[in-house]
């Protein structure tokens, strides 16, 4: 657990008039954490703080340390760890459910899991991409700026000469890393459960073609990467919302509502024309990896759609974050 978290927990017990002191401590710790790196000794903390505040000699190195610090904070927060635990548990639940109720009808993707454990990874993404994964990403990205603002630590983060643009970039990079980690975790958990509970062998694609287990694994990896790209696009949206408010829960809720509403819109046949413009309708295109030949054109369009979302909402987040008054 980081020094910052420890400090926060300690200060929870303090009385309210200690609040100003607490936030200053937080910021100081943050700067120290940021410059000394998580693995380093804190022997030269004082010098490091001094360096961080008064010079910006090595911007790239500074950004890297800031990013490492942010990633460390993200993956040490108990809330985020709990969410990752849930993400890892869902494939286990699917695997156990299929194992118990195994009839092996072989029809749907989930039905095929009983015959081949590798298919469980595809089934897990199919089940989790609509809501579970987006929820986890929305929590992390929606909290990124609004959480700091709400806690009162944002002001002190901006004391460092990193600049708002770089801070926002670091925040988004942190979100992208979380997306990659979440999708990798889902894939690995599903693989582990699939191998443990079911036989593993050559994978039958949707086209009826059978590929070797090794190529199946490659396709699993690509599915995870494509899903992570889709989640990163949602992360950009949630980050933009996060810069608009100081209530983290509001940013998270708004992002999840956006996901649900766009899925509802995508399901109405009368307004099918809007489907290509919705972020959510491209998530399920990872099934292109399960075809022979791979539907690269369709997935290429999906990746372009993700890129468009990242560009638009990233620039909205930047405009808002670099021009807003930081009052808290």
């Amino acid at each position, binding site marked *: 657990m980081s020094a910052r978290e420890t400090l926060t927990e300690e200060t929870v017990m303090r009385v309210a008039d200690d609040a100003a002191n607490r936030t200053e401590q937080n910021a100081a710790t943050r700067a120290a954490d940021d410059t000394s790196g998580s693995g380093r000794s804190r022997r030269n903390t004082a010098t490091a703080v001094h360096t961080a505040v008064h010079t910006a000699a090595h911007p790239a190195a500074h950004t890297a340390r800031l990013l490492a610090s942010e990633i460390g904070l993200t993956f040490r927060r108990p809330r985020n760890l709990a969410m990752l635990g849930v993400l890892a548990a869902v494939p286990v639940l699917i695997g156990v459910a299929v194992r118990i109720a195994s009839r092996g009808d072989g*029809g749907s993707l989930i039905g095929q899991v009983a015959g081949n454990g590798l298919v469980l990874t595809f089934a897990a993404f199919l089940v989790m991409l609509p809501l579970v994964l987006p929820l986890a990403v929305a929590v992390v990205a929606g909290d990124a700026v609004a959480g700091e603002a709400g806690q009162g630590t944002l002001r002190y983060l901006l004391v460092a000469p990193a600049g708002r643009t770089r801070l926002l970039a670091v925040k988004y990079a942190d979100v992208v890393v979380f997306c990659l980690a979440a999708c990798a975790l889902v894939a690995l958990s599903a693989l582990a459960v699939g191998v443990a509970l079911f036989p593993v062998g050559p994978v039958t694609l949707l086209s009826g073609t059978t590929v070797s287990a090794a190529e199946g694994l490659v396709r699993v990896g690509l599915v995870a990467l494509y899903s992570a790209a889709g989640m990163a696009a949602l992360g950009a949206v949630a980050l933009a919302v996060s810069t608009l408010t100081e209530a983290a829960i509001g940013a998270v809720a708004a992002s999840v509502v956006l996901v649900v509403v766009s899925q509802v819109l995508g399901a109405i046949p009368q307004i099918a024309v809007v489907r290509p413009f919705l972020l959510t309708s491209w998530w399920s295109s990872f099934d292109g990896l*399960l075809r022979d030949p791979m539907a690269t054109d369709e997935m290429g369009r999906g990746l372009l759609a993700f890129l*468009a979302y990242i560009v638009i909402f990233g620039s909205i987040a930047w405009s808002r974050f670099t021009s807003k008054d930081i009052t808290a």
Partner: protein
Amino acid sequence: MSKRARAVRWGVPVAAVAVVAAAVGTGPVIAAVQGDPSLPDRTAQQLLADMAGSWSSRKVPAMSGTVVETASLGLPALPGLSGGGASALSLLSGSHQLKVWYGDEDRVRLMLPGEMSETDLIVNGGQMWLWDSAANTATHFTGHPGAATGSPVPLPSAASPLPTALTPQHAAQEALRAAGGDTRITVADDVTVAGRAAYQVVLTPKTATSLVRDVRVAIDGETLIPLRVQVYAKGAAEPAFEVGFDSVTFSAPAPENFTFTPPAGAKVEEGRAPAAAGHEAGKVRDAADGTRIAGSGWDSVLVTSLPATDAKGGSGASAANGASGNGASGNGASANGASANGANPANLLDTALRSATRVSGPWGSGRLLRTKLLSVLLTDDGRLVAGAVTPEALYQAAGAAR
């Protein structure tokens, strides 16, 4: 920060939106700037003759591409028709994608992608496989369907859930076949389809009773392959039915597209070889169960007894055959869809009937279902009369059939 600086910063997302919108709209804009392509002038007769020549010599080049089918037939909202499922019935509404690989007339693969499912039709030599991933079933056919139908693209006619009018070649052929003395054939401005300059042949029915305003066939300027077929209903600006290439490349597809081995664990069925469907348009056809075609050409009306219980039986199949000889590609697709095994046709009929209006006249009484392109009359004495014609023509056919 000043108001001005703030405004400048907010200009960045506005610019980002503009860039994305421009990227999305680039295709149409470029097409609009370039204008219509110009190909060497050819009269309708020359075009038809050249096409007939290239078809009879069967010099269809190897190609692969994506075909997009869009149907807005004005059907009542039918449950189970929406979405991207691979069911043939779902082709009746909305937009669908089909991938085509064409090696030569003996090697063809059609792929209908659905969400997390896929339907494939693979023809290789005398072998034909129909693969349905959702049902995990591979159906094997032997024989030579291409030779049986006499079509440049060997498609099954009745046994397959993929409607016969799905490829532009076939649809164009059907439309042109229906053109007799009752059709005015003209050549309209050249168009660009799938990035290729194409001639546009317009078939306009001369009869007043037809619901079809015209059928537009775009023919590739270089290879004379039909690239797109659009069926316009009277009084509609958008095509009621459209099937055409979204992208196409004229190069030999990879050979593994044409090989199929049923995957382990799949159900393998031996299918009945598709019966050769007669394509004589306008001929009055008397089937064993009383199904026949009244009228000819655009006015063709299908008269049949209602499929009582066994909707997939003989009457359904012959209805499909009858309508595919009917000419209008919209008809071909819908009638074939109704006999396909994708969804339960009986349920569909029930749902459709609820939105039908009651009509009566000297011919009797019944319920009328009107769509942009198709009128269906279900008489109370259990007959089904359908065609791409006005209801009045249906009443006449129903009266004459008594």
